C-alpha cells in the first residue's frame, strides 16, 4: 500500500499505537528487549531467547516480544521493558538468563513486580 494522504497516515498511526501499547490483535501485553549493539554485547540475545522460550514453555501466546534500540541505560544493560494490560510499563535492568526466567515467572505469570531488577517505571 502507498501512503498518499494524511488520512492514510492517520490510519497507520492508529494501528501502530495499538502495537505500542502491546494490545494489537488478541495480545494483552508486550515485552521489549533493548537490542542495540550495547545491549547485545551485554548479552541481550540470550535474554530475548530466554523470554521467548519461557513464554513458549508456559503456553503463553498473548504477550508480544519485540526488540527496540538502546534506551541509553547502558550501565544496566541488558534492559527489558514489561507492559501488561493497563499497568504502567516497568523497566528492568541487568536482565540475564536467570533474571529473564524470573520476569516471566513472577511478573508475567505471577503479576508481581521484581523490585530488585527495577530500573524505572515508565519509558516516557
Amino acid at each position, binding site marked *: 500500500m502507498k501512503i498518499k494522504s494524511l488520512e492514510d497516515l492517520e490510519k497507520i498511526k492508529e494501528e501502530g499505537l495499538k502495537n505500542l501499547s502491546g494490545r494489537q490483535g488478541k495480545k494483552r501485553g508486550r515485552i521489549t528487549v533493548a537490542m542495540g*549493539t*550495547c545491549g*547485545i*554485547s*551485554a548479552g541481550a540475545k540470550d535474554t530475548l531467547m530466554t523470554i521467548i522460550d519461557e513464554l513458549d514453555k508456559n503456553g503463553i501466546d498473548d504477550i508480544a516480544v519485540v526488540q527496540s534500540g538502546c534506551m541509553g541505560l*547502558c*550501565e544496566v*544493560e541488558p534492559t527489558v521493558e514489561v507492559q501488561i494490560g493497563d499497568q504502567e510499563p516497568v523497566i528492568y535492568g541487568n536482565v540475564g538468563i536467570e533474571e529473564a526466567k524470573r520476569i516471566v515467572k513472577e511478573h508475567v505469570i505471577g503479576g508481581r513486580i521484581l523490585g530488585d531488577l527495577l530500573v524505572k517505571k515508565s519509558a516516557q
Partner: protein
Amino acid sequence: MENQTLTDPKFAELDEFIDNLPDKKGMLIGVLHKAQEIFGYLPAEVQHHIAQKLDIPESTVFGVVTFYSFFTMKPRGKYQIKVCLGTACYVKGGQKISDRVKEELGVTGDEPTSDGLFSVQEVRCLGACSMAPVMLVGERDFYGRLTPDKIPQIIESYRRKENKK
C-alpha cells in the same frame, strides 16, 4: 586463469553481485566489501578480476584496497577477533584485553593462529563504548565489560564449537 574464474563458484557469486548492480558508478568500495565477504580477503587475483569486471585500472583497485584498513590482502582466521582500543576501551584497560587474547592464542600481531581458526585485530571503537572494554568475535558476537581473566573461557567456547563439527 580466465577459465578458473569462470568455474570457481566464489568468482561466480561475485560476478552475479556485480552484474546485478543497478549502476556501477562509484561502486568499487561496495564490490570490495562483497568480495572480502566471499573470499575472506582480497588477494591480487581477486583485485585483478574486479578491475576487469568494472573496467577500471588495477592500480586504482590496489590504491583503494590499501587505503582502507578494513580491507586486507592477507588471509585472516576463521574467527576474527577485534579488540577495541578506542578511547573509552583504552581508558578502561583495552590494551590488557588485547595482550591477553594474543597471549592465549600465541600470536604477536594480526597473523592467524597455526590452525587458522583465529586472528586478532586491534580496532578503533566498535560503538559499544558504554560496555568498555569490548571485543567482537566474527561479525556479531560482542563481548562487553571484559576483564583479562574472561578471555580464555571465551576463546575456549569457539574451540569447542569447532571440535563438535
